[in-house]
């Protein structure tokens, strides 16, 4: 019964509770769908045996009246999360054969809530990319196609496997990570919902690090409510991550009251960028209008340092990455290419193990941290980062939530944006500010463009106020009433 794969998590939990179907049936339905959608290349590793074992265990728990918040829900796990005994690749050749002996805190939390793992989802190598083209395991294909055009499109990145799997109904929900937009951008390009919570909300322990001060885990799912359910299970203080915040996790699902009367919505004038399509502009205005009709108050706001966000991000993120990725040296795990000396072994291993984009970012990061350049680049970027945060702090004195487009365009073809990496980096223009400021942001599918491709709107909230953010997103979702399905799903 393939209908099972079309259920939301909330509906599936109800169905399981009402004994309309078992976790095993739910799992099997998804495993079946996965087999049909191999061409999407969404999964790097499929774990059907684990999935069915977990599903059976879930059925037993439920029968014993001990079901958790996500009991029996089949999820895909971005292959950046270390999973005990299961190959973890970060989309990179350099982690060849790496099976962690430990489970990341976020996946541990999900499994403790009863979730079932379908497999490990493809991603841009080390989460560096906006197209999923940089994975060593090949690109993920977006299940969406332009109307009347069979060109394969990118699913966005870096959580492209996660977004594609959720859109293609081969996972009910998926974990993602978001360093500069890696949850929200692919969610927007695949018609799914993705939330990056406040920095510190989810533990980073056991997630392969890209840029430590920006990385944050979050869910991608098919509804705001599903994201709320998943985030509730993923989040929480972890003493093993010094940057995780000691704060109770609210009941996010209960925050979805559907009532935003009196809420002040900020529309940042600096997000009206050159080259943005009229369609996106119109969708943004439509989104604002929907919220207004629901009783919210619209306010134009200014985030004056927005134009510096992208360059700032592309200094800080590679700087941290250049250091975080130094541990992939062929000495203790993963790929090793032997050499005649230690230095040669390093050089050969890293030359073979890292792809072009990862190397580019390591070079950028090494450069900006070098003696003589540190002040001009890294230090300056940190100063601008503080100003960007200040922009938001000021803005949130007058508004409760900020509404922006998620991306400057819909999904693009594999050979578009190819020659100029800077053009590719522009995909993150609306999302990076949120990471730099450590704020929560969510992308909600809001409509289709003229070619039939999904477009998303982004909402940005105050730090640790995911409740207001989700409440607003829920209303936006209801107004947009996005029901379109990718062809063939």
């Amino acid at each position, binding site marked *: 019964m393939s209908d099972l794969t079309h259920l939301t998590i909330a509906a599936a939990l109800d169905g399981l509770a009402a004994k309309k179907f078992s976790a095993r049936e739910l799992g099997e339905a998804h495993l079946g769908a996965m087999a049909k959608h191999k061409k999407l290349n969404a999964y790097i590793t499929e774990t059907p045996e684990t999935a069915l074992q977990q599903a059976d265990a879930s059925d037993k728990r439920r029968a014993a009246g001990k079901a958790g918040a996500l009991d029996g829900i089949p999820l895909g796990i971005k292959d950046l*999360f*270390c999973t005990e005994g299961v190959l*973890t690749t*970060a989309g990179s050749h350099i*982690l060849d054969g*790496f099976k*962690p*002996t*430990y489970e*990341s805190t976020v996946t541990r939390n999900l499994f403790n809530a009863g979730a079932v793992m379908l497999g490990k989802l493809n991603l841009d190598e080390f989460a560096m990319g906006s197209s999923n083209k940089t994975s060593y395991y090949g690109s993920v294909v977006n299940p969406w196609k332009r109307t009347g055009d069979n060109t394969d499109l990118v699913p966005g990145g870096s959580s492209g496997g996660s977004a594609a799997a959720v859109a293609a109904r081969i996972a009910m929900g998926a974990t993602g990570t978001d360093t500069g937009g890696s949850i929200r951008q692919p969610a927007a390009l695949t018609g799914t919902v993705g939330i990056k919570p406040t920095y510190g909300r989810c533990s*980073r*322990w*056991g*997630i*392969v*690090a890209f*840029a*430590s*001060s920006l990385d944050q885990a979050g869910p991608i799912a098919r509804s705001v409510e599903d994201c709320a359910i998943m985030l509730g299970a993923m989040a929480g203080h972890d*003493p*093993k*991550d*010094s*940057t995780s915040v000691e704060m109770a996790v609210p009941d996010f699902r209960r925050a979805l009251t559907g009532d935003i009367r009196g809420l002040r919505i900020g529309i940042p004038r600096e997000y009206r960028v050159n080259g943005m399509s009229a369609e996106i502009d119109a969708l943004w205005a439509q989104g604002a209008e929907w919220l207004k009709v629901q009783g919210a108050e619209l306010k134009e706001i200014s985030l004056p340092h927005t134009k510096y966000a992208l360059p700032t991000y592309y200094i800080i993120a590679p*700087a*941290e990455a*250049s*250091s975080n990725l*130094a*541990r992939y*040296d062929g*000495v*203790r*795990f993963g790929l090793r290419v032997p050499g005649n000396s*230690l*230095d040669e072994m*390093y050089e050969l291993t890293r030359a073979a193990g890292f792809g072009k984009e990862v190397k580019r970012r390591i070079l950028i990061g*090494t450069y900006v*941290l*070098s*003696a003589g350049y*540190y002040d001009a680049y*890294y230090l300056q970027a940190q100063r601008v980062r503080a100003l960007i945060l200040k922009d938001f702090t000021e803005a949130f004195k007058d508004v409760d939530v900020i509404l922006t487009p998620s991306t400057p365009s819909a999904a693009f073809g594999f050979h578009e944006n190819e020659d100029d990496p800077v053009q590719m980096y522009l995909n993150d223009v609306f999302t990076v500010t949120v990471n730099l400021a450590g704020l929560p942001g969510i992308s909600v599918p809001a409509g289709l463009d003229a070619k039939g491709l999904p477009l998303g709107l982004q909402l940005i909230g105050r730090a640790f106020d995911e409740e207001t953010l989700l409440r607003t997103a829920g209303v936006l979702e209801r107004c947009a009433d996005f029901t379109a399905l990718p062809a063939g799903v």
Partner: protein
Amino acid sequence: MNDTAMVNDKNLIEGKTGMWEVVLGLEVHAQIISNSKLFSGAATNFGAEPNTQVSLVDAAFPGMLPVINEKCVEQAVKTGLGLNAQINLRSVFDRKNYFYADLPAGYQISQYLDPIVGKGTIILDLPGGEHRAVGITRLHLEQDAGKSLHDQHPSKTYVDLNRAGVALMEIVSEPDMRCSDEAAAYLKKLRSILRYLGTCDGNMDEGSMRCDVNVSVRRPGDALGTRCEIKNVNSIRYVAAAIEHEARRQIEILEEGGSIRQETRLWDPGKGVTRSMRSKEEAHDYRYFPDPDLLPLNLDPKWVESLKAGLPELPDAKRQRFIKEFGLSDYDAGVLVAERESAAFYEAAAKGRDAKLTANWITSELFGKLNAAGKDVTESPVSAEAIGELIGLISDNTISGRIAKDVFAEMFETGRAAGEIVEAKGLRQVLDTGAIDAEIDKIMAANADKVAEYRGGKDKLLGFFVGQVMKAMGGKANPAMLNERLKAKLAG
């Protein structure tokens, strides 16, 4: 910098073209005493089997994160307080990036711009009873690296990560020292303070205290010369030797018209020379930046105050007190307080006894015998209380100081108590003037000729009579009484 410091002529080294002054600064890596590592829960025991004390964090597995060990922070703050240094309530951990097989993450977590401890002072106790202050520049926390073992296989290097991530304090001095004696005194004093505080065991042979020496030379009164850093000097004796060699090497180069290249040099204890390791041009660019996995370290001033209040009495204060309270000489007090254990031993022994006499006995007799036996004071076969008893027997005239030495030798040998030995061997000294007079009379009668000579002015013979009577009395006559009675009788 201490350019204006008075040049002390006795520290100068004579070259072929005149006198040179050596300028020294020391960087000490002191391993913190803690049960677990700076950022992981792995154990820190010395001498464990290779790679048995390694957590996933230490081995830098993907996704692993550091979490600061509060005990290590406490130890660093205590040490800072013990060095009369400024405690920085906000400090930052930075990454020092470089590739090496025994550095699993490819970076060392250290503190660069904002160390936990700032400027402080350490008082050197120099030979000859002189004291001199040396500035501490800073103390920061950092991780140790692992160990590369190059001698286990003909073509391979083995890596032992037991030490990787162990907490170190890097303690940097100002370039305030001017001779190897001062450098040695600095290390001894620093080690003494660390041991008093219980923050580092100071064992250089186990590598828990390691020293890099910055050496430069200049003409007296000139600006500082170019320095070389000498690494891997792992005993105080080697520090002195390395400095002597390096200063001579630099003087020779300069006197031949050459110039010193700023570089890192390695001390080769086998050959007794320093040799070039890497020059400044090849020096790493460490690309320091704040570690995004760790928040800045913020200390509560109340907590720092409570640590300060709980500090033990440190060697300088103890020395002053011993001088004041017990009337000891600066030198004796210095010897006794060098180790916390010997100071405690002394105080226990001196309780209710003649304090100066106790100090003499401990610094000369006890330490002499312990040294000869290769033991330290904690392993002394004679307890503090037992020495106290012996001092008591001397003070109340039960035995003479001379007899006491024999008694002490037996105490050290057998562990028996002083009183017991004195009684068993009948070593009580004779205080009965009648008995002493009787012996004197006998000796005088037997040596009438000598008596006559003495009375004729040859008063050197007093010693002969003292010896004869003592011998006859088995050494037990009270020496003062014997002298007095003998003089009286010989005078006629």
